[in-house]
């Protein structure tokens, strides 16, 4: 046993696959210890917030400011408001207004702003301009107000009794706050999804759920496959015929279609994560049964099995001691494959909307489902679906890599 483990862990493919998989598992376990947030908690009002660090503006006002004089502060401020697109738009308006083009230099911010401020008139009717374009220039004008100003802003609070605004604080352009001193900062490395949930926390929780579903489904399928395969292969005769008959029925019906029909008929209320897991397991045992049966048939005529019989061992004992250990490596590999397939099956079901109830736990497939329904991919909101895809792919990849590594260990003929 020890020797086998040594061999297994010296196979490079197994080690790589195992490391990736363990990394994912450890993340799922450790992350919630540090980030105690409910994955389904809706924190964003609005859809698909971009990834970034979200700082509470209110609290940053209240924090003690630090004065930093940075040379590029003003330029950064202007660049934030006046990108190339905006400059070109301004030039367009000014030209349409009548200012000769060669007098406009879009790179000279000061002069451009000057020309704009002196000439822009929201009521001016320019030929060929649509309403939408007019509103665009109005908004542009609004946002430019104060961009060159160097004064700070004043914060005032409404006095509830008198209704007047009383000055509370003022903020200079050179005031900076240290984020770590601001009480409410939320890092959203993956932004929010369509509901406004933190995608990263949701993803970690979903991975955990999917892994659990995969494990349960894989165990169910492998156990059924193992028992049926052992009985059919070793006992043979009528038992074999019956089991093979049932297996053939399940082979002819496409498993995924069967899965869809079953989950659909189970109904919305009963579709918990574990129910789905068991259902996936109950529909995917066919391949394992066949494989185990074939192995057992080739083993049952071996000399040591015959010798076991001659020593008066019972059938159960022979199956457990003389047959099972010889197929153990095979069964482990089958289990890994079943887990991988089950995770993909759950993802597939959830994308179709037949997965576990959406109100309880997120799963990888559900996250994909939501991203698709709310057209994240069309709007370029990559953080809502791409990380999920990556995790699904990594799980399947690492499990299959582990399997290939194991295959090479147990079957020396495949070694390079």
């Amino acid at each position, binding site marked *: 046993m020890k020797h086998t483990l040594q061999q297994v862990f010296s196979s490079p493919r197994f080690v790589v696959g195992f490391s990736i998989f363990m990394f994912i598992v450890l993340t799922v376990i450790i992350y919630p210890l540090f980030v105690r947030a409910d994955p389904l908690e809706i924190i964003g009002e609005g859809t698909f917030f971009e990834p970034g660090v979200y700082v509470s503006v209110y609290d940053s006002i209240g924090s003690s400011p630090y004065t930093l004089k940075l040379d590029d502060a003003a330029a950064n401020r202007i660049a934030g408001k006046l990108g190339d697109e905006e400059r070109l738009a301004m030039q367009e308006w000014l030209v349409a207004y009548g200012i000769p083009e060669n007098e406009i230099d879009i790179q000279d911010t000061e002069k451009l702003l000057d020309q704009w401020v002196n000439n822009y008139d929201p009521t001016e009717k320019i030929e060929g301009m649509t309403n939408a374009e007019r509103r665009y220039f109005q908004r542009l004008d609004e946002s430019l107000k104060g961009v060159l100003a160097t004064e700070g802003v004043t914060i005032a609070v409404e006095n509830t009794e008198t209704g007047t605004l009383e000055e509370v604080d003022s903020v200079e352009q050179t005031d900076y706050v240290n984020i770590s001193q601001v009480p409410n900062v939320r890092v959203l490395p993956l932004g929010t999804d369509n509901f406004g949930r933190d995608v990263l926390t949701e993803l970690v929780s979903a991975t955990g759920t999917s892994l659990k579903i995969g494990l349960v489904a894989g165990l169910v399928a492998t156990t059924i496959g193992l028992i049926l395969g052992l009985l059919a292969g070793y006992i043979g005769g009528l038992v074999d015929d019956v089991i093979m008959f049932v297996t053939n029925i399940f082979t002819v019906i496409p498993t995924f279609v069967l899965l869809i029909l079953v989950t659909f008929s189970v109904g919305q209320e009963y579709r918990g994560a574990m129910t789905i897991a068991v259902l996936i397991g109950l529909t995917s045992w066919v391949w394992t049964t066949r494989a185990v049966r074939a192995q057992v048939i080739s083993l049952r005529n*071996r*000399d*040591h099995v*015959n*010798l*076991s*019989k*001659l*020593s*008066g*061992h*019972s059938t159960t004992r022979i199956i457990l*001691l*003389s047959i099972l*250990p*010889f197929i153990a490596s095979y069964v482990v590999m089958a289990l890994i494959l079943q887990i991988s397939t089950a995770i993909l099956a759950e993802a597939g079901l959830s994308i179709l909307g037949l997965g576990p109830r959406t109100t309880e736990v997120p799963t990888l497939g559900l996250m994909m489902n939501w991203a698709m329904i709310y057209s994240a991919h069309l709007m370029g909101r990559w953080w809502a679906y791409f990380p999920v895809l990556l995790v699904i792919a990594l799980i399947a990849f690492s499990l299959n890599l582990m399997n290939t590594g194991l295959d090479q260990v147990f079957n020396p003929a495949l070694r390079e």
Partner: protein
Amino acid sequence: MPDERKIILRTSGLTKVFGFGRNKTLAVDHVDIDIYESEVVSIVGESGSGKTTFAKMLLGLLKPTEGEIYFQGKLRDIGSRKKRKEYWKNIQAIFQDPYSSYNTFQKIDAVLLDCIRMRGDGKLPYEKKVELMAEACSFVNLKFEELTNKYPFELSGGQMQRLMIARIFLLKPKILVADEPTSMIDACSRATILDFLMQLRDEIGMTIIFITHDIGLAYYVSDSVHIMERGKFVESGTADEVILHPKGAYTQRLISDVPKIYEEWDLSTVEYSS
């Protein structure tokens, strides 16, 4: 002159058919055999002659399609598991490949302990069991202290086959079926294996049935020889009769095809065929 020896095993019309319809193969074709107590019998045949199938039926590992087997004069009944266990106290086997005779996941002690249990001595204290196992090992010139707690792959082929004989020593069955027991053993160690088996025959009167393709081996050890071709016995008799004075054409050809060293080996009678 009436044969006063007792018949321990007898078959009548024993037949085994595999498959059905167009794929039917007649592996064993209505074979009758009388085996006497303490006799050494060899069943000689080339591969595909059906000798292993026949042996498995004698052992009760394969169900015959037709025919009867009589053990100690009575029709053999191995219908229930209990009756099978009783039968296997009287008949055991040694197989050709010592490596595949063992469960590679179990220590070799398990093999011997199983025998002790089968004898009915399962309740003995452990020290007593160790005594029995050591005695069995020393019979085949193995030291139990060196082998205990080892796994099969740690032993050599010769040691493993000898341990199989130690197993027989513990069980002391009335009949032993030896299926090519020396074909995978080095020539230098063959005589040892054969000697142990003969010793058991001399000490406890064990009947030995050799299944082999090696006609020289059959001649060396057996009292009587049966030549098997395509499921049928084509010649039977004492070793001298069958091998030194073969009557059937198949037997004659079989013997002339084996290289000789004392007599001249005639290569000229070879006809080329595919």
